[in-house]
């Protein structure tokens, strides 16, 4: 390859340096990446092509899905939740979910711990009504450390849990945490 050699002037500490041409595929791919970058920038400059635009589209799609699901599920009401609470099989399922999800803070029997006792007649975030309990579970109370479980659980599951918590009120579990919040004398 004498044509690609520089001769003696390109020798350093015994290392000789040839002057072969650059591989064509290498140069070509480089031009491809540059062309890609050009078109990408031009395209990303268009309206609606940004990261936030894509996010808004995804949020709206989900809102539509939620709306359809809500219509299918019917209203959350005292009576619809109370019906759930009267079905032993449903409450067994709800109890299992309560133990796996809620007991870290409220205790296995609802006696309280990090969070308040659910077996007395005192309520912090609602009036002890099933709809209020449901709202507290669903949306949480971020200022008081109650997470919004509606983000994580299926809406049906949230309803069952609300009904289950409703059945705990007034059972006064042994070793329960001291009351927090205000007393609600009698629950319907």
């Amino acid at each position, binding site marked *: 390859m004498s044509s690609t050699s*520089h001769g003696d*002037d390109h020798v*350093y*500490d*015994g*290392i*000789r*340096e*040839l*002057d*072969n*041409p*650059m*591989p064509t595929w*290498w140069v070509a*791919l*480089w031009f491809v*990446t540059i062309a890609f*970058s050009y078109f*990408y*920038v031009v395209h*990303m400059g268009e309206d609606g092509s*940004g*990261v*936030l635009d894509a*996010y808004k589209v*995804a*949020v709206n799609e*989900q809102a539509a*899905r*939620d*709306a359809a699901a*809500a*219509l299918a*599920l019917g*209203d*959350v009401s005292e009576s619809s939740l109370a019906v759930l609470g009267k079905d032993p099989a449903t409450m067994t399922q709800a109890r299992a979910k309560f133990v796996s999800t809620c007991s*870290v*803070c409220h205790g296995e029997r609802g006696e309280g711990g*990090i*969070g308040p006792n659910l077996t007395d007649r005192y309520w912090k*975030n*609602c*009036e002890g009504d099933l*709809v209020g309990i449901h*709202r*507290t579970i669903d*949306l949480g*109370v*971020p*200022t*008081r*450390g109650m*997470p919004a479980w509606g*983000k*994580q659980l*299926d*809406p049906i599951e949230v309803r069952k849990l609300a009904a289950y918590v409703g059945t705990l009120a007034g059972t006064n579990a042994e070793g329960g*945490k*001291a009351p927090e919040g205000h007393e609600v004398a009698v629950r319907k």
Partner: protein
Amino acid sequence: MESRLDRFTYDDAIVRKFVTATIVWGVVAMLAGLLLATQLAVPQMNLGLPFTSFGRLRPLHTNAAIFAFAGNAIFSAVYYSSQRLLKARMFSDRLSAFHFWGWQAIIVAAAVTLPLGFTQAKEYAELEWPIDIAIAVVWIAFAVNFFGTIAKRRERHLYVALWFYIASIVTVAVLHVFNSMALPAGWLKSYSVYAGVQDAFMQWWYGHNAVAFFLTTPFLGLMYYFLPKAAERPVYSYKLSILHFWSLVFIYIWAGPHHLHYTALPEWASTLGMIFSVMLWMPSWGGMINGLLTLRGAWGKVATDPVLKFFVVGITFYGMSTFEGPLLSIKSVNALAHYTDWIIAHVHSGALGWNGFMTFGMLYWLTPRLFQTSKLWSQRLAAAHFWVGTVGMLLYIVAMYTSGVTQGLMWLAFDKTGRLSYPDFVETVVRIIPMYWVRAVGGALYLTGVLMGSFNIFMTWRSRPKTYEEIIVEAAPLGPDNLPKRAEPTALEKAGVHVFGRKIDYFTEANWHRLWERKPFKFTVWVTIAVLVASGFEVLPTFLIRSNVPSIASVKPYTPLELMGRDIYIAEGCYNCHSQMVRPLRAETERYGEYSKAGEFVYDHPFQWGSRRIGPDLARLGGKYPHLWHVRHMENPRDINPQSIMPTYAWLLSDDIDFSVVQQRVDAMAMLGVPYGDAVLTAEKTAREQASLIAREIEEQRGPAGLGGKQIVALIAYMQRLGVDIRTPVAEPSSPTANANKQGASK
């Protein structure tokens, strides 16, 4: 003209020192890595001690691997090859010694301060300000020594290895100085002068280019010297060297923002980072091609020579990771890979494959020459090292790819109703723990290889001569630089016909570059300009254009106690496992809450966005759990969540807050422009009041009494503040319409 030859010797003693340090620190760095790997599989391996917990040791591992192991390897290569390529002994033996001992002292200082929790909390730039200053001083000594050697060289042209050394020395200095700008608030405490988005931008401009100019360009220089030496083959293409050198130096600098895709960084910067990363692919591969094609005619030797085996696999890994880098920088790929172990796989294929194998290839070639033993103690042991190391490395990265893609997909997965399939973060952790075990085994194998190599080199050293022979080198001194005169213009050229053709020829034949290689000063100036111009295009707009960080009126400075809590968060290295940056992806806003805005971070000196979610994001942690949850969780995370792999932080419940430094720290923040107003006068009193308030609330939640002066309270104050400043008003219990939209309640 020059009949007289200079007689001189090369300083190999200093290279022997750097080689020894490379091996010692390599073992230390990898031992630390192995401990960390087991901690992720078995949280008890954190030992319940502050000094041995993951958050404090992980920076020790990264700093030791980059600056101690790779750093000393680079210096070995530079000191050995530069003297020979320049036909001159190092400029000053004293500066060489100062450089060596100064660098080792810095490493020791790092090894002491990091486990003690002294950190600036910026990745690979964690060391506190006095050590930062020492780094700058030692680096300048190195630069003076290096450029001094160039000045007294006896070789007219600079060889390509030296171009890469020049670029590394100049750029690392620039990166270190600008990223480490901090205001001291005590001897081992400081706050970054930049905040939030700008701090993040500077950090990843630095972080990415530390990869470029500490782990790439010096190792390319190493390759350009040691590979043709070991293969005894000529370097493939001079023009390719020129083109890939300059494009690498210019383009690399722009790519930093690809570490911040989907964050609160303005999208234009993120886009620039992405496209320059894509355009960087071929310039990076230029080095790989030039290396592999240099082996033409020597492939037979690769089969038998362990040195070349290490080099071939090293260069191949370089090619793989420099393809993967551009791939990961594409935004949609990054959405999956960011915060996962995919990135850990990527950096380790670079660090173990490229840096580690190039280093050991060099050491196996170099040490018999340095120790004047004519050959390595055992070729077979070196070959065994190669295979054990390669298998270890493959296990490591395959485990981390699997773990990264698995967890990334789980985080993004929705069920058919559009709810997260894995809402409980810990589920995604439990799934990848088997991969943590495979990784630990792979890492242990790689370390075994390194120990075999260390033993081999130790045995080689043992058979050294009693005294090293001083080899006298002879070379003619350089006379004045009489450039070859241009040929007289011909008649045709005078008529203007051939001028254009000759100019094209001058450019394409790289004659201009040949001239630059004779002029190190001019060359260095052009490198500096390439680096600074590219930086300037991104840095200046980020700082100067106000719309990049839209301000949010409800965002207020941290209270003095929250600031103290933030300092504990920083000292414990929480950012090593937890991000504080919710990306605008529905999978993230469903899991964590509203996505993060640039204006939320204006008082965050330094920023704490993190880069890996070993645990969940904390940007919206405030108010999510009661204080008592945090007390119990920090005391032992497994009391709250049996599957958690977080270390215990029980000492936070017993260690006192140092209220005497509150005032100093608030003053420092005020000096950085955080609007504390009159609060700055009563910082300590305010902090104590808030501490006792939180302690009382913990007691009311029936938690332990007497935590008022303890660190846990400061940390809780900070954690409860995270992300609450822009919280949209929450429905009070009395408003029944709050969930109307979602549940279709129509009351």
